């Protein structure tokens, strides 16, 4: 007789013979692609706006969601919104060091911290990036003193604060969606308007299905029938629960759509593709 079978605790040890590695590989590939593209896109600092002509003026236009809200604008760049669109005006000297003089860096922390601390993405990257564990019943990297989320990962508990900012962003991006239906003050519809309209809808589906929101809005209560306000909380909790059940789907759809929105605005702004619309 040999020693006990299938009990060794080593990295990737498993008796599974199915293709358990497909799902973590897809997650790894998906998230890495997004990280690479969004870093590149943020680095550009130009071609993130289109309103019928390069650097067009007037109310309305397509703004890439990576660049919203725009704090400062370096007016020497191509494909940027009118300076009135920058919340704090021209690019300040003290930010000379930011790559590409790109206002995208200044807001990156909000969506990044939100998604990074999201309970769904945590699962995804704990499996695909840190292999703890890579898949169910597949050995993770054995640690002497495993701490889970009690050690360095304690910061994940800020998630609800990241969520508050994420809700603000839904409003900002909804404003951008409305703006995408105007060009120099005139109402119209283009492919870009539709793309930028779907964006906050998907982000809303994602954000309003957040586990922290589900807790704060009603989940923290023990009794849903004990008062009128508790009954209202229960109704809200049910809506968040509906979205929460689809949280993973919305997490991916909204991520892909944000990326696609940037690609679209960028290509139109660079003149690579032409936006089909009712204005011309």
């Amino acid at each position: 007789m040999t020693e006990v079978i299938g009990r060794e605790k080593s990295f990737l040890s498993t008796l599974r013979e199915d293709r358990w590695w497909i799902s973590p590989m897809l997650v790894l590939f998906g998230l890495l692609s997004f990280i690479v593209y969004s870093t590149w896109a943020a680095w550009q600092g130009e071609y993130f706006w289109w309103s019928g002509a390069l650097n067009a003026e007037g109310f309305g236009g397509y703004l890439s969601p990576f660049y919203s809200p725009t704090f400062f604008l370096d007016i020497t760049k191509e494909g940027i919104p009118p300076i009135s669109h920058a919340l704090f005006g021209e690019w300040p000297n003290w930010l000379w060091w930011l790559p590409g003089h790109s206002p995208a860096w200044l807001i990156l922390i909000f969506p990044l911290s939100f998604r990074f601390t999201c309970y769904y993405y945590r699962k995804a990257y704990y499996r695909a990036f840190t292999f703890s564990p890579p898949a169910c019943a597949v050995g993770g990297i054995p640690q002497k003193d495993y701490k889970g989320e009690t050690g360095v990962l304690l910061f994940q508990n800020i998630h609800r604060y990241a969520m508050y900012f994420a809700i603000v962003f839904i409003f900002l991006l909804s404003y951008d969606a409305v703006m995408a239906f105007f060009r120099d003050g005139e109402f119209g519809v283009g492919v870009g308007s539709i793309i930028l309209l779907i964006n906050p809808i998907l982000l809303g589906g994602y954000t309003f299905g957040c586990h922290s929101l589900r807790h704060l809005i009603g989940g923290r209560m023990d009794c849903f029938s004990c008062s009128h306000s508790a009954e209202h909380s229960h109704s809200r909790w049910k809506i968040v629960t509906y979205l929460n059940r689809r949280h993973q789907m919305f997490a991916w759809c909204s991520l892909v759509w944000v990326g696609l929105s940037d690609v679209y605005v960028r290509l139109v702004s660079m003149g690579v593709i032409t936006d089909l619309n009712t204005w011309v």
Partner: protein
Amino acid sequence: MGNRKFKIYRGDNTKGELVDYNCDVTEGMVVLDAMHRIQADDANDMACRWNCKAGKCGSCSVEINGRPKLACMTRMNEYSPDETIMITPLKAFPIIKDTVTDVSWNYKQNLKIKPFSPAQNKNNTEKGLVMQQVDVERTQHFRKCIECYLCQNVCHVIRDQDAKEKFVGPRFMIRLASLEMHPMDDADRIPAIKEDHGSGMCNITRCCTEVCPEDIQITDDGIIPLKERVVDRYFDPVTMLYRKLFKK
């Protein structure tokens, strides 16, 4: 369905091997049926734990082709005819004999949990507190648990990281959740959930939910809500201040 190949772990906690068996499988058989047939025909001394054969007692938990499952709820036709079916004991618990493991560690975890402590002074009607359907529904699905311990077995904290001392495991996290969310219960288990029961050890990778034969949303409806309650108490300055001010 024909003659099928099996490999079944035979041995104990110190030594053992995978033994090859063949078994004639007929329409509608589950893996437990095949184990019984092998036991009857070729291996009279093979240990095999079961009780209800209906997915309700939680006794027949094993690992089939490396995946934690109930042998009585796993149909033979889930596997292709040429596939060898490997049956091994739960990895996270000591083997008693063959595919039977000693799951008593789990009962000890259960004893650590402060039991249901009903308060008399809570009201939602003039008759006092009456359990309403909305409140029943929320914790009811935790009660579907059949204590098969597949979730405890697959949880990497228990299975791979040897942290049995620091984490009660998913089955008991949902027991804690059902008590904490009970409208009538008055006990405060949040400090214990954080420290003794180890809510922070779980990294919400959801394997418990994936294997649960009762489809209990262990992570989403049990563990994460408890983690959020721990945040309220220990990490969110606003809710902490609120608690201080209103002594809640």
